[in-house]
């Protein structure tokens, strides 16, 4: 009932682990498939060389179902991730490699490397809410997004997914540019630029001061982005942002998403959230008289 496909990548359930959540080690990714029930997994965003990321605190919990995080793209570099991908693949679900870069060349190098290591697709992280000026801007400009996607698309044979930020005036224009540049799917959205100040000290809590807001509180914004993008582009859209329940996932798909990523939801519902949400989705589909999850994609339009 939940079987689906994103640009020829077959998924047992449309629920995918979002990048950066428990995606630092292959064993973890594997566990999220075998024990957690994810239909596919996205690795932590990988760059050309190891990066320690920001000083801590890297994460602060907001009372209202939110998380502000500023990990700062900590990662061991894509080459150190070869073995991890090998292990992750043992889970039996497609492994999507998340790529970041501070230049087109870096994006290309990492994407090609990950293709060699056997990922099913690459997801381009085009905007990092919390990494200074460098690199944070690609996803904020339709021209730069176009160029990055095009450059990577021309360099690899596997599907290329563009992951967008909602911290723009008009996400649809950026999405269209990515489609024009040849991307095979679009993930919307990444965490939103946010901040927490501790009133007892008067100091910003995060080591990086600014971080990315994720979790249930951004869901209405993410759903709106998916709806707007799906209306205007033809490539599949992957919803991301706050999905925590079957109802959330169904909402994303009705807005036009072909699959849904889950990250912060793990905080409240544990690693098995993918199993739980799949079950809840099935119940909603049954109640609504649907036979296959594909039937609900975009019906809110």
């Amino acid at each position, binding site marked *: 009932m939940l079987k689906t496909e994103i640009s020829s990548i077959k998924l047992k359930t449309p629920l995918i682990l979002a990048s*950066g*959540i*428990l*995606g*630092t*080690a*292959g*064993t*973890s*990714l*594997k*566990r*999220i498939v075998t024990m957690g029930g994810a239909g596919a997994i996205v690795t*932590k965003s990988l760059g050309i060389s*190891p*990066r*320690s*990321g920001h*000083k*801590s*605190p*890297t*994460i*602060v*919990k907001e009372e209202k179902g939110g*998380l502000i*995080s500023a*990990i700062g793209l*900590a*990662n*061991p*570099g894509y080459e*150190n991730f070869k073995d991890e991908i090998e*292990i992750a693949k043992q889970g039996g679900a497609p492994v999507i490699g998340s790529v970041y870069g501070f230049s087109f060349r870096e994006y290309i190098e990492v994407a090609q490397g990950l293709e060699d290591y056997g990922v099913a697709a690459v997801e381009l992280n085009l905007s990092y809410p919390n990494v200074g000026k460098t690199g944070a801007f690609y996803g904020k400009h339709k021209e730069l997004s176009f160029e990055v996607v095009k450059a990577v698309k021309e360099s690899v044979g596997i599907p290329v997914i563009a992951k967008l930020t909602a911290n723009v005036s008009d996400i649809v224009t950026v999405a269209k540019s990515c489609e024009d540049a040849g991307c095979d799917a679009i993930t919307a959205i990444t965490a939103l630029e946010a901040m*927490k100040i*501790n009133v*007892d*000290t008067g*100091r910003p*809590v995060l*080591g990086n001061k600014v971080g990315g807001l994720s979790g249930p509180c951004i869901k209405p914004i993410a759903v709106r982005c998916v709806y707007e993008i799906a209306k205007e582009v033809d490539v599949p859209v992957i919803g991301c942002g706050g999905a925590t329940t079957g109802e959330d996932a169904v909402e994303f798909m009705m807005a036009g998403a072909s699959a849904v990523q889950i*990250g*912060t939801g*793990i*905080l409240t519902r544990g690693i098995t959230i993918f199993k739980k949400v799949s079950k809840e989705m099935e119940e909603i589909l049954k109640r609504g008289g649907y036979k296959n999850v594909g039937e609900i994609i975009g019906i809110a339009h």
Partner: protein
Amino acid sequence: MRVTRIKEIRKETERIKTYILEEKVDAIPGQFVMVWIPDVDEKPLSLSYHKGNMGITVLAQGPFTNKLAELRVGDKVGIRGPFGRGFKIVGDSLLLVGGGVGVPPLAALADEAIQNGKKVTAIVGAITKSELLFVDRLENIGVRVLTCTDDGTCGTKGFTTDVLRDILKKEKFDQCYTCGPEIMMLKVLYEAKKKGIPTQISMERYIKCGIGICGHCIVDGTGQRVCKEGPVFRDVDVEKISEFGKYHRDASGTKIYFRNRK
């Protein structure tokens, strides 16, 4: 993030201090808190006092812990937690094996165990006498303490594992608990297993979020999170952690192999 003040500072050794905080806590021995020094950093530290005013006992060894060492009574620190799974008291006769700043969570465990009427033996090791941690504290509550130092200035000359091997020849314990350098814990696990004593191990891995979401503390083999499924693991679980005693990951996630692996 809650902000609290330092209520009391006790100098334990040359480089180790205990900080009693104003915030009250009711935790399980072995659990840790994330301690924030505004504008500096935030790091995981085990509770050395887990009931009432919370206490942490810290070795100054780098930017964060050195900064902590400069703080004074009344200064503010931020706290998240307690987090993770702590020690479980099993049986009546407990053996604790701690090295260096592995002793703080074991001291909290001793408090709890003695309170519950258990018989507690602790092997406490350090490089030299002045570095031995919590010997008086443990003895004062009725723990039998066996010390050892690398230089023989106090107790047995040698490692905790030497003392352990010795005592296990003569005595039987229901459960063994260890915290300290991973190589030491690897050996403790081995010795205890030989005698059929179940062991609980408190592991250290690079902690960022502390709440099981970022994945930085993940261990290979099981994919478990030290901050969530740990830091205390049972021997049967540790045996499935393929990296135990071999390597850990740094802030970037790059593997770092333990140096003195023998």
